Every structure is written in structure tokens, then in C-alpha cells.
């Protein structure tokens, strides 16, 4: 009894006061730097690099916003694209369709694959290694190579022509490793306790996966899907030769359509429509900012949850 009490009282000491001893004043630091000028140089380099990195980011965003927002006009959001009015509305709508189509193809595949890897495959399964290697290879392939493959396979060999569908399949392959990896991580973060509890109550494997494991992994999976949306919205090179560059609202999945990023490329390509390109850049940048914010919020929720446990 006595012993326990002493342990508790020692724990009562304010931790902050201990750390405060370790904290150095500016003057102390200067004295240390005087002793070792190399440390000062290294310190300055580190600070300089960080300042450069974040200044570049701020400057880029600020520049595009400041120069672009005055160029945003209602005309740019009218329904039809014409040579007089380079409306980005059709491109916006195509982007939404393209995103939905790609996700419909890639998300079930990615989640299914992750479920297989985490829940079904036994350790040392040869398929797991092969799938991991394939996913790693896919995530390193540049988008232009995806574009050429999409053109050779979907557009030419399958005779789909330049179409939303060809573009969506190409992008689906591109985001597949991303969806797979984030889902895998989300599934691995689900504690085994939950699975054991479910089995203990007599649920089968399938029911455990769908009713217990997947629901608790949803925020993590969603964060991955949102990142994938960011990739889709920003992609250009993989789409120019798969979904083509027609600037009209697509009527069917087989019609050619340009997404916002491709639209922006088309505007800058001939150098005639810089104002419209600025405006498109603003819209793209805002979409990316929103997407990053959402995925950060979700990731924070996942982290908070895992700490609770």
C-alpha cells in the first residue's frame, strides 16, 4: 500500500516543469552556436529550405488566385462552348461524369482487392506478393504511358473511339493502386478484437467483413477515395488521347469529352485564351483545395478514433 502511494505521488509531478529544464533560452542557444558555427549554418540552411518550400506554395496559390479571380465571369459558366465564349461549363460537367465513372470502376475493385489481401489471404501467400508488386509498378507508371495504353487498348483495339468510357477505364487503372493501398491501411487499422468478437457471436467471414470490418474502416477508405478524386480532376496527359478534347456536354458514355484539366491545356496550347486559362486554373485550384481539406479532416477523424481505442 505504502509503495503504491509513492509511485502515484511521483507521477503527480508536473511533466511540463521537467521539460522546461531542457528548454534553452535564446542567449544559451547563441552561446552554443558560437562554440559550434557549423550548427548555426546547418540550422540556417534548414530554416531557409523550409521557408523556400512554403513560400513557393503560397506564391503559386496566391498568384493564380489574384490573377485568376478577376477573370472569372458568368459567361464562362454558360451552358455552351463556342469560339467566342470559351465556357468551362461543359468541361465541368464532363469532369464530374469522368470522376463518377472512374470511381464506379476502380473503387469496388480496389476495396475488393484490399479485402482479399487483408482478410482472406494467408501469410506467405504468393498472390499477395505479386499483387503488391503489380500495384507498386502501376503507381510508378507515368500518366502519359497510361494515356498511350488507353489509346491502344480501349480506343483502338476495343473500338470505343475517343470516349468518356475509354478515359474512365484508363483513369480507373491509374487510381486503382491508390484506392487499394489506402483501403488496405484502413482495414489493417481495424483491431482484431472486433473480428474475433464477430466470429465469437457466430457470424461468418463474409458477414464479419461487411457488417463489422468495413463500417469501421469507412473514414480511411473515404480519405483514399477523395485523394483519388484529386488525381482524376487534375489528370491531363492520360486523357488527351483516350477521352479526346471535344468541348461539349457529353450525351452518352461513348461521346468524347474534355475534363477541366484538358480544357485548360487546350486553352493554353495556342496561347490565345490566357484569361480563360487563368479562370480555369482558379476553379481547378479551388477544387484541389477543397479535396485536400476534406481528406485531411477525414484523416484526422481516423487518427482521433484510433487514439480513443
Amino acid at each position, binding site marked *: 500500500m505504502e509503495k503504491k502511494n509513492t509511485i502515484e505521488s511521483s507521477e503527480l509531478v508536473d511533466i511540463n516543469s521537467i521539460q522546461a529544464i531542457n528548454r534553452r533560452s535564446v542567449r544559451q542557444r547563441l552561446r*552554443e552556436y558560437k562554440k*559550434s558555427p557549423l*550548427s548555426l549554418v546547418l*540550422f540556417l*540552411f*534548414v*530554416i*531557409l*529550405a*523550409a521557408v*523556400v*518550400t*512554403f513560400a513557393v*506554395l503560397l506564391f*503559386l496559390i496566391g*498568384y493564380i488566385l489574384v490573377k485568376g479571380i478577376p477573370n472569372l465571369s458568368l459567361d464562362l459558366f454558360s451552358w455552351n462552348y463556342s469560339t467566342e465564349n470559351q465556357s468551362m461549363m461543359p468541361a465541368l460537367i464532363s469532369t464530374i461524369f469522368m470522376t463518377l465513372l472512374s470511381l464506379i470502376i476502380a473503387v469496388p*475493385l480496389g*476495396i475488393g*482487392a484490399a*479485402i*482479399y*489481401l487483408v482478410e*482472406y489471404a494467408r501469410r506467405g501467400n504468393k498472390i499477395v506478393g*505479386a*499483387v503488391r*508488386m*503489380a500495384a*507498386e*509498378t*502501376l503507381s*510508378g*507508371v*507515368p500518366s*502519359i*504511358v*497510361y494515356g498511350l*495504353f488507353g*489509346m491502344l*487498348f480501349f480506343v483502338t*483495339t476495343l473500338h470505343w473511339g475517343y470516349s468518356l468510357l475509354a478515359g474512365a477505364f484508363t483513369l480507373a487503372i491509374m487510381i*486503382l493502386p491508390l484506392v*487499394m493501398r489506402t483501403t488496405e491501411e484502413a482495414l489493417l487499422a481495424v483491431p482484431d478484437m472486433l473480428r474475433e468478437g464477430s466470429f465469437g457471436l457466430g457470424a*461468418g467471414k463474409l458477414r464479419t467483413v461487411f457488417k463489422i470490418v468495413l463500417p469501421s474502416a469507412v473514414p480511411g477508405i473515404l480519405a483514399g477515395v477523395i485523394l483519388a478524386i*484529386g488525381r482524376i*480532376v*487534375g489528370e*491531363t*496527359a492520360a486523357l*488527351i488521347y483516350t477521352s479526346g478534347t471535344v468541348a461539349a456536354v457529353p450525351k452518352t458514355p461513348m461521346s468524347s469529352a474534355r475534363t477541366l484539366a484538358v480544357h*485548360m491545356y487546350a486553352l*493554353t496550347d495556342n496561347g490565345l485564351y*490566357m484569361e480563360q*486559362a487563368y479562370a480555369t486554373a482558379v476553379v*481547378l*485550384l479551388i477544387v*484541389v*483545395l477543397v479535396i*485536400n481539406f476534406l*481528406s*485531411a479532416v477525414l484523416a484526422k477523424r481516423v487518427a482521433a478514433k484510433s487514439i480513443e481505442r
Partner: protein
Amino acid sequence: MKQRVLELVFRILFLIAALASILAVILICIFLFANGFPPMAEIGVFDFLFGMDWSPVDVPPSFGIFPMIVGSLYVTAGAIIIGVPIGILTAVFMAKFCPKRLYRPLKPAVELLAGIPSIVYGFFGMVVLVPLVRELFDSKGASILTASILLGIMILPTIIGVSESAIRAVPNSYYEGALALGASHERSVFFVMLPAAKSGIMAGIVLGIGRAIGETMAVMMVAGNQARMPDSILEGVRTLTANIVMEMGYAADLHREALIATAVVLFVFILIINLCFSLLKRRMK
């Protein structure tokens, strides 16, 4: 019984989903190689890879992609020279110098840097960097230097992300041991922790090289795209990626096939880089 069938059906469905990525890799290899090797053989592998002259619409045409290979290597090397020091130092800042209060907004900022579309980077390069280089060096503006700076910025998030987690993976006892021996904070970080995180940082650099060599739109918008050997870093250059995008739209017959063969060369580069990356990652563990 019904339950059992259902279990089996879903087990197979999940397996098929897992095999999808393997199928995708196989399809990509088959289609690229099947379409890329015949034209290479027709042109002559040596003439294609080391030919100095790319004039696909001349009579007779000439398909030498050596200037483009060199172009890709130059801008990638430039991007590494600019991006790697800044990236590693920023990673050190994030892992060891950054106050917690500052870290919370800065970490998403690095992710944002990775999320900005390459077409926006390219546009930024076109309207800011190209005029800047033109003014500063009294040259044409669109050049190896411009492309290197832009690519250097674009590979920053990759290098920062991988290096930061590599530094964080070094056991804290290394750092504490160095401090206890009298080293300053900076010396402990740079001379004890960084060497210990070496292979992780290398993996980040290799990943950055892959990003830089495969980047298409942004490079195309600032590199000038002249398909000849450059004499200085202030001259324009064309990369393998830019060559494909620029000419695929109107190319026909052998010209078109030569462009696909260009993609094969790029793909082989990427496969080699991927292999290096996985080897480094394995060594990390």
C-alpha cells in the same frame, strides 16, 4: 448451404479484384511492347535509340530519339539538383525543428503541394518562371533551367514525405545518445540521424526521379521542346514525354509507331527506377 455458396462466391470475387492490378500490368506491358518493338526493329534499334535526328515528316523520315533521351535526363538531373537539397532540408525541418503548433498547418500544405495538378504547375511555369528566366539570363526563357526549376518544385512533396517518415523511423535513442555525447541538436540530427535514415531518403529520391522523368504536361509547357541536342542549360530541350504528347495528335503510320516506341523507352526507364525503389525499400526493412 446457401451461406456457404455465398461465402465462396465472394471469396472468388475478392480474389478477382486482387488479380485486376496484375492483369492491368500484364496488359500494359503486352500492348506497349507489341506496338513498340516492331517499329524499333524497322527503324533499327541503334538508329532509333542513338540517332541524333528526329524529323519524322521529312522524305525520307528520320527517327532518332537520342536528343529526347538526353533531354529527359537533363531536366531530371536538374530537378534532382534543385529539389533534393531543399526537399531533404525541409523534411529535416518537419521532423526535427518544427514546433508542433506550426506542424499542424504545414503538413497538409506539403500534401497540397502534391495535390496541385501538373497542368496548373505548367501554367504557373509558363506565366511566371519562363519570363523570369528570360529576364534574368537574357535568353529564350523556355529552357532546361526553367523545366528543372519547375520539376524541382514538383518533386518536393515526394521527397519531403518519404524523407520525413524515414527520419522519424530512426530510433530516438540515436538522437539522445548523440546529445549525451555533447553534440548539438543540429549535429545530432545531421550526423547521426540522417545517416541512419539514408536508405529511406534514397528511396524518396528515386521516387522523385521517377516522378520527374515521367512528368509530361508541366515540362512540355516550359521546356521549349526543340528536338535537338542542347548546348547549354539556357537552351530549349524536348523530353520523351513531351515528344509523345505533342506529335501523337497528327502522327500516322511509322511516325505514330515510333512515338509508341518512345513510350516503350520511357516505360523501360520507369521499370528500372521502380526496381531500384523496391530494392531500397526492402533494404530499409
